[in-house]
């Protein structure tokens, strides 16, 4: 059967090549299925010593440390760290608001000379992270969140699974209202504990509702990372003429004189961002606020570097 040629315009090989040397590290022990490069909460057979433990009947006698017995006349079992893989669950907001975008002004990206939407930006990040994760043997899954989970791909470490994720990313469109809170709660429950969950969204919901989501995900021992995507126009609100604003998620339209409400808009935005900042600090979320005019390569580099330095943090 003939299948149409996929453009895959959200994949930039040069960016992937530059990121290839940077590992995607989890900030907490992951519960993988096979051996990998991430710390496991259980003791294993790696070469890295973890601790001594008193012998109890039933323990493997091969793990007894005889030298310690010779020095202290007590029986100790020598334990080693276990390495495992991780399950990376990419959550992309596909509500209508994610289709908003403008022409970036300061980006040198050849792709960004045209209008780039928040969804396109999320595609690029998701594709790059998925590529990196599969490359280091981790399992990657994808969930598209709008009025519910509109598309779900379970986390698999099979390299061929990456194609399915790319296909899904290419096909998704920003439609409908955001029910991100409900979707995150659902993911927290349905995803097995100890996974890395990366959410790409504009998070245009009540921050207090998000707090409950983040706490739920943390309770389930997930490593939660957020890419908060905001268009420069949304940050600056630089309109000149009276404008009729049409809600991209199907709500009512608002007519406003931008010069008259710009200060109020900025005030509301600041309150929202401050509130969100406080919440992510309190819930231990890896939060990245991203302006769409920022090259996503820099964003990912910052994301990966920070994770690598914070490895092992419980």
């Amino acid at each position, binding site marked *: 059967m003939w299948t149409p040629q996929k453009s895959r315009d959200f994949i930039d090989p040069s960016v992937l090549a530059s990121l290839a040397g940077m590992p995607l590290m989890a900030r907490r022990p992951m519960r993988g299925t096979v051996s990998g490069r991430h710390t496991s909460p259980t003791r294993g057979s790696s070469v890295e010593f973890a601790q001594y433990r008193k012998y109890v009947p039933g323990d493997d006698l091969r793990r007894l440390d005889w030298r310690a017995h010779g020095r202290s006349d007590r029986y100790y079992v020598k334990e080693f760290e276990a390495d495992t893989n991780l399950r990376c669950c990419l959550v992309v907001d596909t509500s209508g608001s994610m*289709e908003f975008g403008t022409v970036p002004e300061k980006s040198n990206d050849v792709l960004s000379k045209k209008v780039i939407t928040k969804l396109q930006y999320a595609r690029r990040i998701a594709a790059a992270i998925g590529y990196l994760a599969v490359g280091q043997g981790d399992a990657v899954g994808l969930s598209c969140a709008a009025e519910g989970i509109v598309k779900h791909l379970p986390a698999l470490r099979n390299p061929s699974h990456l194609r399915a994720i790319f296909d899904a990313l290419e096909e998704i469109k920003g439609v409908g209202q955001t029910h991100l809170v409900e979707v995150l709660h659902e993911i927290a429950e349905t995803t097995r504990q100890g996974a890395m969950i990366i959410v790409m969204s504009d998070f*245009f919901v009540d921050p207090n509702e998000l707090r409950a989501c983040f706490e739920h995900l943390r309770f389930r021992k997930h490593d939660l990372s957020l890419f*908060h995507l905001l268009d420069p126009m949304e940050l*600056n609100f630089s309109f000149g003429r009276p*404008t009729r604003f049409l809600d991209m998620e199907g709500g009512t339209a608002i007519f406003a004189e931008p010069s008259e409400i710009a200060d109020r808009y900025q005030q509301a935005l*600041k309150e929202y961002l401050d509130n969100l900042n406080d919440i992510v600090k309190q819930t231990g979320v890896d939060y990245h606020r991203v302006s769409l005019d920022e090259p996503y390569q820099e964003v990912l580099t910052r994301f990966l570097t920070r994770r690598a330095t914070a490895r092992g943090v419980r």
Partner: protein
Amino acid sequence: MNFLQPWMLAALPLALIPIIIHLINQRRYQSTQWAAMMFLLSANRMNRGYARIRQWLILALRTLVIAALIFAIGRPIASGVLGGSVAGAFTGRGPANTIVLLDRSPSMQSSSDGTSRTKLETGVSQIAEALQTIGTERLVLIESNAATPRELDAPADLLDLPEAGPSDASADLPTMLLAALDHINANQLGQTEVWICSDLRAHDWRADDGRWTSLRDAFVEFGRRIRFRLLAFSEVSSEGISNTVNLSVRVEEAMLEVGEEESAVVLSLKIDGDAESMNDSESVSQTVPLTLSLDESRSVVDVELRGGVGELTGHRVVLPRGVTRGHGSVSIPADLNPADNDFYFTFDVPPARRTVVVTEDEEVGRVLKLAAEITPDESLKSVAEVVSPREVNGISWEDVSLLLWHAGLPDTATSDASTAKMIRAFVNRGGRVVFFPPEGGSRLSTSGELFAMRWTTWNDQPDENAIRSWRGDADLLAATMAGTSLPVGRLRVQRYAGLEGEATSLATLADGKPLLSRVATPRGGVYFCSTTPLATDSSLAADGVVLYVMIQRALSDGAKSLGNTSNLEAGVANPAAASKWQRLSGRSEALSSENAFVAGVFEQRDEGRLIAINRSEPEDAATTVSDSQVDALFQGVPFVRVDREAGSGSSLVEEVWRAFLIVMLIAMIGEAWLCLPRQRPVENAGLPGGVSA
């Protein structure tokens, strides 16, 4: 408020430009898809309060800026104190007709400090300036001297017109208003404003005059067509007494004493202060230097004032040998009102007083001759002759001062016409006549008619002592100089004759019939006494004091008309005749046509008589009509009163475009301040960032 360029107000709709631009701007909106609606909704909710008010304020201020600019270009004038018609405010034209009633009385020459502009100058200049500013199609001046309308070409003429200058004659406001009313009616004037410039002196306003009622009724009928503007220079306290210190001098008598060795003028004069403060300090004495000018010589006499009043009685000024005729003046130092600081007088040898008694009754003739011949002053010579009515034509009238007529009235329609004519000529010359009723019942009713008066019938008076009232304040029955009343009430009248005609009663019997009446004549004096000195008719002869005083006063008045000198009140003399007089003393800049109204000494060129003209005595009284009286006089008439002070520099109307420019500037500053971009509370909201725990 009026506008000098009212057509600029046609541009007022331009003030709506900001609103129109705002509305157009609202229509030229763009539509855009927007994701961050939650912030927009929040901002929109916050915007409903102050921001919306600010938006409307900005719009209002922008509108105000344009409106103020248009108003300023329209050259607004503030005439709020004078009111104004709504039509006048938008047409920019003043009233179609303006009548200025100008009080030129001496009191209008006072100033606030004695050196600045007088009330009259201030009033005239302010009216002229106001009328020049607001404009008027037709301007008519009615000044107090002539009291006749005079049309002026332009308001500026008021400033140069001699007839708008000072005068020494009292004003008569009812007469001036009557002239204005006649002018309005005669010319069928439309919208008219009547400006009255006066200091509200009671003597000039005559608030008790019966003409006010008819005047007010007539003006009320015009409705709002006739509007009154009173420019009042009252400067009085609530008690109606002036607060300013002002002295006036008045010669009460200037009598010539001719002696064998020398002659002298004996002066009696009075200096009066009208200030309340002077009245309060009766015990404080003050000396006023009085300058006395007599022909070419001048002397100064100190007059002591007590309680604000100083008197100099019997002051002799010796004349050069051989001089028995002349004139002089007294003056006091300059004060607030220069018009009452001088007083002029004349003196001459008094002529012999000659009386003619016309009667057929010997007893009456004897009594009246006796009363006329006995003079109160030894220096005076008085003669009287008794003639019968048939001998009247033989009387030499030239030197007769008094005619006592006890006979039937000569009828102008019969053969007595010549007699009546002679009597009229005698009265017109200044002579005095006292008519007594003739004897006989039937003859009395057929008596003729003279001066529109006629005897009717004899009546008996049952109550002999019933003199109901008499006028003790003026004329023949006035009280003495010492203030003692004449014993008129003690007279007994047994019989009196009825009288028909229009006359002023000087004494009234118990039944209301007149005992002594005076007929108003332009000159001279005509009296009718309703009884005779006969013992059967009255006690006039028995109680001879009243008859004697009555006759001597009439004789004295009549003699004055024959004398070579006379002292007249300003405004009394005929202006046309006075214009031919030669001015000997007084203000030289006054027009000869106003001789009758200007204080000074004049000489009649043909007769050589000396005439002194001075202000009337009531002019020295500072009493003014109260505010309530003024309000009552103009009740029901569109009336605005503006109180001003002498020398006041503030104009009645002023261009106020500067105020509108200031309003415009303030509105522009306010608009700019409201439009200033508010400091954004989120300085780094646009910066990307992130945190990680």
